[in-house]
């Protein structure tokens, strides 16, 4: 959905969902999460789609990806998308950029590993780990998503 916005994007999303697309890829940086959220809400409200029917990806902007910015950034994205959660949250680029005049340049001191750890803290994985530790058998649910780090959980 890069470089797509406004009415053109709204129409394209309508066509895509009608055609059968169920994976929507957006990003904070694309400045179109609000449009995605608006169209999805319309489909949810009309009963044409359930939340679990779509897989929504968004990305942490490389302009706000210091570890302490992750929670706020993700909450802002969810607000625009009008969703309680995203299915996949990506670190857009493994370096944080800062403005230098008209340009963005990578901050060599930024630490994407710290950003990664902060992102993990925002994810359901932590819920599952907690529930595993508390022994209520929630790990079974994890098995439904092969990509969510189950192996680590089972150790």
């Amino acid at each position, binding site marked *: 959905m*890069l470089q797509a916005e406004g009415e053109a994007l709204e129409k394209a999303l309508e066509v895509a969902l009608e*055609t059968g697309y169920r994976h929507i890829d957006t990003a904070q940086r694309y400045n179109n999460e609000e449009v995605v959220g608006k169209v999805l809400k319309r489909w949810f409200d009309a009963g044409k789609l359930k939340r679990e029917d779509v897989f929504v990806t968004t990305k942490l902007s490389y302009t706000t990806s210091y570890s302490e910015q992750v929670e706020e950034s993700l909450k802002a994205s969810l607000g625009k998308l009008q969703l309680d*959660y995203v299915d996949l*949250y990506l670190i857009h680029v493994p*370096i944080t950029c800062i403005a230098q005049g008209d340009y963005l340049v990578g901050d060599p001191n930024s630490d994407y590993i710290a950003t990664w750890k902060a992102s993990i803290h925002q994810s359901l994985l932590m819920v599952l780990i907690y529930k595993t530790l508390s022994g209520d058998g929630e790990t079974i649910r994890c098995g439904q*998503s092969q990509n969510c780090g189950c192996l680590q959980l089972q150790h």
Partner: protein
Amino acid sequence: MEKQYDAGRARTVGVSNCSIKKIQRILDTCRIKPANNQIEMHAYFQQPELVDFCHKNGITVVAFAPLAPLSYFSYFSGEESKPKSSALEDEVVITIAKKHSKTVVQVILRFLLQLGVSTIPKSVTPARVRENYNVFDFALDVGDMNKLQTLHAGENGRVFDLSDFAL
């Protein structure tokens, strides 16, 4: 733990534009591995080593710019990059498309899917949105796949210059 319990804002977490080296660092230092790596990938820039590395480590791959634009405007400098030749006009792809009575776009998307990679072709043109979806009614054979794999042009095939990111 309360804070973590309240989270769950993302079902899975991943990375984008990460090299093998960058991912290895996460695998070496973090308990949870990325679910996904979203990378530039198309007929002329297939990144076979990176895709193989991700798959061996259970990391799914999503290809952005699967149809490789002819040019693009840099996020950073605002300058237009030099035009590249397009796989959409490549004789190898055209021949395979004719053989299957599909479009070149459908052949390239199908090729990536058969490599085990998800694609996210961007279009706001309704006819193209539909065309891009219509790739589930045919399959490329081993010969087609081999021919398409030879189109990989290494770093020369890269469209998105991420050198500013020191990747």
